[in-house]
């Protein structure tokens, strides 16, 4: 059975899909955000769940004029709250090449004598210093995974803030960062502290190797 989904439900599925795309395609030099939902339809699959068919427009957060079209399918599994929704997507066209920015960031971090530590990104006034922008973007990309894994039809997550980030020295070629982030869940309006360990290498993409929800006052 097909129903036209309400704006609110279409919006949640779209945000989820966008986060997933961002996670798979993002880097410290490229973050993707949902610009618009062109089309949305909902299909009730008997015994399985609700499937949303979406046509989205995504934008490059560093260059708002750079957009791509994306079709996505989001399947929320009925009754099984512990299973993450299935997301499949196709991006039309090419994403901007960010090798130069990615490599520059990679080399910059690799050459640090002391491990990077920072907090409150953005700060209370929304400021992000230029050096911290790739760190901010990396969290934006990685949080796409956390949000995807923890979403239901009744949630819509956004990254509210990085409370704390600490680089973890590695002997291999990967960069590793331990983040404490705040997620904003729009339906409940809750601010949820979440810890995530993020691995990145320019050719190997972003990976969240470990993540855990924290108690409400953990980040204060």
């Amino acid at each position, binding site marked *: 059975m097909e129903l036209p989904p309400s704006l609110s439900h279409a919006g949640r599925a779209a945000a989820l899909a966008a986060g997933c795309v961002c996670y798979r395609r993002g880097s410290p030099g490229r973050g993707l955000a949902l610009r618009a939902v062109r089309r949305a339809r909902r299909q009730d699959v008997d015994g399985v769940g609700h499937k949303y068919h979406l046509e989205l427009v995504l934008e490059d957060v560093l260059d708002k004029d750079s957009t791509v079209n994306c079709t996505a399918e989001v399947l929320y599994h009925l009754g099984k709250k512990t299973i993450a929704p299935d997301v499949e997507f196709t991006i039309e066209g090419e994403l901007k090449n960010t090798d130069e920015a990615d490599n520059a960031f990679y080399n910059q971090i690799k050459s640090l004598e002391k491990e990077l530590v920072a907090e*409150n990104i953005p700060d209370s006034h*929304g*400021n992000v*210093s230029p050096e911290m922008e790739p760190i901010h973007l990396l969290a934006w990309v990685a949080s796409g995974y956390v949000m995807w894994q923890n979403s239901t039809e009744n949630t819509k997550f956004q990254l509210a803030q990085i409370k704390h980030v600490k680089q973890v020295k590695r002997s291999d070629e990967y960069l590793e960062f331990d983040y404490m982030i705040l997620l*904003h869940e*729009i339906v409940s*309006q*809750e601010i949820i502290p979440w810890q995530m360990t993020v691995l990145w290498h320019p050719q190997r993409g972003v990976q969240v190797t470990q993540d855990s929800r924290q108690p409400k006052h953990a980040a204060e």
Partner: protein
Amino acid sequence: MPSGAEASRCPLAMKILPVFATLVAAACSEQLFVGDQVLRITASDEEQLTLLRVLGEQAELQVDFWRHPSSPGRPADLRVPFPSLQAVKIFLESNGISYSIMIVDVQELLDEEKKTMMESRRTERSISTFDFASYHTLDEIYDWMDMLVDDHPSLVSKIQIGQSYENRSLYLLKFSTGGSNRPAIWLDTGIHSREWITHATGVWTANKIAEEYGQDPSVTAILDSMDIFFEIVTNPDGFAFTHSSNRMWRKTRSINAGSRCIGVDPNRNWDAGFGGSGSSSNPCSETYHGPYAHSEREVKAIVDFIRGHGSVKSVISIHSYSQMLLFPYGYKTAPAPHHQELNELAKKAVSDLAVVYGTKYTYGSIADTIYVADGTTVDWAYDNGVKYSFTFELRDTGRYGFLLPSTQIIPTATETWPALLDIMVHVLEHPY
């Protein structure tokens, strides 16, 4: 200490003196500049110029040019961290490059600058120097309100409608050209304290209304027949808390009996579908509706005011974020009786908003567009005879969320203005 944390060094672009304070305020504020000096160096020929540039490239020295070496005879300013001072001076002296010490201790200067800035904030006494492009504290906004009244005494007055839980004054700005109990438009910002862009937009908008009376035909027409009541800091306790303790605080700061958790969601505390599943009965929740409808002084004050006034024709409650223009209902999915008219008006308003910078808003009823929400301001207003009840959710859609950069304050307020005007003009032209 001064030589650590390379990744948090501020960009070379920050060479201007007043921007020192930004160095302190920005994310890299953990770095101190104690003992650092700024040397004014004058290269006498091309060879010395080259040496200077090479000096700047020595990563381990961590020097940075505040004014780059450009040509012989022109001074270059170089900040030298304390540990590198000796090495740099020996280098300059042994190569016969003349220099003088321009700043003996950078940290001292920063401290002085910060002090001056704080003092100047306290002595800001004129509307014309109020910085609309910054976020302000409660005191600064309350001081500014008095200045607005002083500057437009025949148009603007300040009314106190009650006190918050922690006994802070709840103020309205009243815009009126006379008459007696004229039909009125109600505007509020800041009901959720973490939504800083709303207070900032409120301040800009109130100023705009005052400026445009007598200039803009629509504003003049509106104020010639109607009054505007504007509550800019609807939740002052929460707002103070976002400055002092928790930037993400949303609710009031009232103590909940039997719970260690504080605060009630003031936008779930109204008597319209109160207590339903679109709110929470858990005091620790961000959408806790409170022990009973209008339990919060901040909400009760508005209820009493609007009821007592008897002629409020529109309630516009401003929130962030999501870029939406919403109207009743939130507590039920059935369309409101005036759905079509409200929908058409919302469509027009968001279209005029988009013209300014291309910012796209979605629109519709609360329940359809964002979520089911019980006990909201606009549902109560609507169910109590206020037909034109709208909720704005301002910028952005999540990139910065509540932490919207202050550079977006004026663009946000500027684009929202035509949308607000559309609604107010419609209210004027459709009396009921």
